[in-house]
């Protein structure tokens, strides 16, 4: 089975555990070890430093690495701090960017429509999947985002094992929510998810380098679900979402 990682991170972290594989060649080594053919990557500078500089650094970092595809971090364009919709479309098209990552809590802005209307309108029109970490919009905020923008496909990443009571009702209410599998580790969690919500809402990701590719791959490989469901999770669903992007 082959895997496509829907979300990992590149770039130099301020701090890291001894032996943590944060350098790009180390990430590529782990991907190869885990049979991960390709990945969507964002840059730590775009997420933790300055968004547009980080997005540029990302393009330079992966220019010669065909396995890695760019994922840009995005802000509302208030004060012209980020690209307005038309410019964003052109830039994404020019640079082969097909997904965006938002971080409303970390970036200190509202996720409600009065603040995000232009960016989310663009994502809906161009069918650009939008990623964010669960910590950026936990609990009711997750519902609000998915509910406010029903035509945008959202993928949440960096989840955990104790979320199901929060997550289930949002999945029930919002068909546009997809779950990144990296560190989604309730006991037999993927099996339960497939039973209640179907495998086509699960997207394989690793959360590298802070997350574990070896764990993420094993979760899918050892899950008590069909081969077809595993293929959808491992690469099929993200390939479908990327194939729907119209820039």
């Amino acid at each position: 089975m082959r895997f496509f990682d829907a979300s990992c991170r590149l770039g130099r972290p301020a701090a890291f555990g001894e032996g943590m594989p944060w350098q790009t060649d180390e990430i590529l080594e782990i991907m190869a070890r885990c049979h991960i053919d390709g990945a969507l990557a964002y840059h730590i500078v775009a997420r933790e430093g300055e968004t547009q500089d980080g997005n540029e650094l990302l393009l330079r970092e992966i220019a010669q690495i065909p396995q890695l595809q760019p994922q840009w971090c995005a802000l509302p364009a208030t004060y012209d701090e980020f690209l307005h919709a038309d410019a964003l479309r052109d830039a994404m098209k020019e640079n082969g960017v097909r997904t965006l990552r938002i971080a409303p809590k970390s970036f200190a802005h509202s996720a409600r429509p009065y603040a995000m209307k232009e960016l989310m309108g663009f994502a809906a029109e161009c069918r650009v999947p939008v990623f964010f970490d669960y910590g950026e919009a936990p609990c009711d905020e997750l519902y609000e985002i998915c509910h406010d923008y029903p035509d945008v496909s959202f993928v949440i990443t960096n989840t955990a094992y104790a979320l199901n009571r929060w997550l289930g009702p949002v999945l029930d209410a919002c068909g546009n929510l997809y779950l990144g599998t990296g560190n989604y580790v309730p006991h037999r969690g993927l099996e339960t998810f497939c039973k209640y919500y179907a495998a086509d809402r699960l997207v394989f990701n690793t959360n590298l380098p802070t997350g574990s590719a070896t764990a993420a791959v094993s979760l899918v490989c050892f899950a008590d679900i069909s081969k077809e469901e595993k293929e959808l999770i491992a690469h099929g669903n993200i390939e479908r979402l990327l194939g729907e992007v119209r820039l």
Partner: protein
Amino acid sequence: MELKDHVFLSKELKDTFVVDVHIHVGGSTRYQKPRNDGDSVVYTMDRLGIDVTCASCSPGAYCDWMWGNEVCAEAHAGHPDRIKAYAVVNPNYEFDLDEYFVRDDRFFGLKAIPFVQGNLPIDCAGMQQYYAYADKHGLPVLFHAWQPSEVRDATAVARRYPNARFIFGHSGFTAVEEAVEACKLCDNVLLDTTISDIYDGALERIVSKVGADRVAYGTDLTAFECSHILGRVLLSRLTDTEKEKVLGLNAKEFLKL
């Protein structure tokens, strides 16, 4: 076939002895903990090729520890060769462990997690009765040893009670420096691999510091899944010989299984 191939082939580990030294049975008010009974545990064990698990009832630790121990003992009774039961002990009570280990043969060791029982330290006065009993009878004790201070306390206990055998749950990832020191000072200490999320390379790091003989596979099943931690071992850069030690051989010897 190398051990890593089991992951990509989705094959259970038939020819490797696997022991999970750190699991939980019983549901929880705190979060959804699906399929937490003994039968479900054994179903998962069979699917992955895990031979033996060592269980406690963590929800019981937060409230009625004796109720929790009954839940755990029931899981063991249903599968006596597959699920071993730790009795959760509580430092706020005086309790004669003969109740569990002489008049009742359902338990094989103790689980110590006093921080959820009034925020008490591992080495508090109320726990000494239990450590002394474990020392007298050579019992295994599983610590929740997450914080560096907990690992330091656990190390002091392990030195004071050399005939008991102590598993430091989590500590090889959460308090590495202290866990390494514990392994240097105490022959009766084993670290486990239990953690929900840790970067690739962390297992190799702790094995490089304490040796492959001092680390055992543990997962927190059913608090969460166990297959991802199995994969962290199988797909790590350890040799297959080292992986076999971590997966089961160390625990087999340490726990006298």
